[in-house]
């Protein structure tokens, strides 16, 4: 089904009775060319680009719950390409470029809104490091601007400029950054993949792999065994659990990250703002709710909920930056399970088992990566070789010493 304005008008006159399902509910086939495990953003994007760019037919996405129920529907929706290291920056800039044309590609309104991302800094040393990051962004073809305090005041008058402890000294601004309606990304990719003949199978949990003399030939699921030539795993926070079925230990820990949404307020925050002296980021959704978050709770968790101490920490950061939000009431909070890698960077790679491929380690920044991750993983699955933008995201980099440690924290996942 193709969505356009005429169709909306027609359906409006027709009591909206003519809409077809956004994606079908197909019968499972016995065998596929490629199976993608995990119907989150990354899995669905992979399936879409496999079909669209790499012309692979006969693809299935197996999702244990429902489409959009994982991190893709739980994040704070920020997209940006403001990384320091070349290995990351080039990849995330490619992703941002894909976001810019996404809606036409998938024929779905994902509300991609490039309203700007501002990272404020509070000291001279922090300015130096942000300038360096900005230069790295520009070298990699992204946009970056250094804002002085007056400029920030003119756009964001509500920040606390008199804060004695964390004075705002300026900010690094990326105009092309912003936010995207996260659920619509999942639905849109699912819709577009379905249009290209991808089987999207919900409520289908992979419980094991069929491995014959070092080659993975299929998966075991709660709906029976399914064979495939290639199997791509993109299950984010569940990666370790899934790959343990192939007797693999991964360089990952699963941690919970929480998100918070306030009651609806009149629009007053023009983009995404992040605090430089603590971990706090905020934007205002189109419905008016303030959407904000901070750090992961810091301990291994598969619970999809976190503790009140992190709520307190996040609110302290928020109030230090913009005391004006202190009167807003919190409406909702929830958690998602993050696949925190040992260097804070992702993995898009084959495994030592033939036919079995891995996409994981997205930490809490994988939403913005969705299009590029799908594209590069599809490239790897289709061609058997890494895309040049993801060739550094190797699984064995920890063994070989090629870590991509954006923050320089070492092998301590809860610090990334």
């Amino acid at each position, binding site marked *: 089904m193709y969505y356009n304005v005429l169709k909306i008008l027609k359906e409006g006159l027709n009591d909206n009775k003519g809409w077809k399902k956004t994606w079908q509910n197909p019968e499972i086939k016995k065998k596929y060319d490629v199976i993608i495990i995990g119907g989150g953003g990354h899995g669905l994007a992979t399936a879409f680009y496999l079909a669209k760019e790499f012309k692979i037919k006969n693809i299935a996405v197996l999702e244990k719950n429902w489409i959009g129920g994982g991190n893709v529907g739980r994040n704070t929706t920020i997209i940006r390409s403001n990384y320091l290291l070349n290995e990351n920056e080039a990849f995330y800039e490619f992703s941002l470029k894909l976001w810019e044309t996404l809606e036409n590609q998938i024929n779905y309104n994902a509300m991609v809104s490039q309203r700007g991302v501002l990272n404020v800094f509070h000291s001279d040393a922090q300015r130096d490091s942000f300038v360096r990051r900005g230069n790295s962004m520009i070298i990699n073809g992204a946009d970056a601007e250094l804002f002085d305090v007056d400029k920030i005041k003119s756009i964001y008058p509500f920040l606390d400029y008199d804060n004695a402890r964390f004075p705002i000294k300026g900010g690094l601004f990326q105009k092309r950054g912003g936010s995207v309606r996260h659920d619509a990304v999942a639905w849109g990719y699912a819709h577009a993949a379905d249009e290209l003949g991808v089987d999207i199978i919900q409520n289908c949990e992979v419980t094991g792999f069929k491995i014959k003399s070092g080659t993975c030939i299929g998966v075991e699921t709660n709906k029976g065994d399914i064979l495939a030539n290639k199997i791509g795993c993109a299950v984010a926070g*569940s990666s*370790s*659990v899934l790959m*343990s079925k192939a007797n693999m*230990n*991964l*360089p*990952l*820990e*699963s941690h919970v990250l929480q998100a918070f949404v306030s009651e609806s307020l009149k629009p007053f925050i023009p983009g995404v703002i992040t605090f430089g002296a603590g971990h706090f980021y905020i934007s205002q959704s189109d419905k008016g709710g303030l959407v904000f978050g901070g750090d992961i709770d*810091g*301990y*291994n*968790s*598969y*619970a999809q909920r976190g*503790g009140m*101490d992190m709520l307190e920490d996040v609110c302290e950061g928020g109030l230090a930056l913009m005391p004006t939000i202190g009167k807003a009431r919190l409406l909702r909070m929830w958690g998602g399970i993050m696949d925190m890698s*040992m260097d804070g960077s992702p993995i898009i790679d084959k495994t030592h088992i033939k036919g079995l491929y891995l996409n994981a380690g997205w930490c809490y920044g994988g939403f913005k990566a969705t299009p590029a991750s799908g594209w590069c993983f599809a490239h790897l699955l289709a061609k058997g070789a890494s895309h040049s933008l993801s060739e550094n995201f190797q699984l064995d980099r*920890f*063994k070989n010493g090629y870590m991509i440690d954006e923050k320089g924290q070492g*092998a*301590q*996942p*809860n610090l990334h």
Partner: protein
Amino acid sequence: MIIDHPLLGPRDASEFIYLGDASLLNRPKWDEEKSEDNFYKYLYLRENVAGMHKELWFHQQGDRSWLVISRNTVTHEIFKVELATEFKKNMGKSND
């Protein structure tokens, strides 16, 4: 989460800092044939189980002791809290 400290009684988890899997107590020997591979596994690979997990916590804002906590990572329920020194003794290792 409330952590029932073996010496101090119930304390809020926010007083503690989390290090990770208690397998970090099993530091490999440096002078073995496979020590390079062993250190790679020790430093970077984790079981990362969904379920019962033994893990290291440091009482940073308390008595600064290291604890080994047995906790269910799916429910956050804590089953056992031991001093890391005791835990290591029971592992049959010396504390130097």
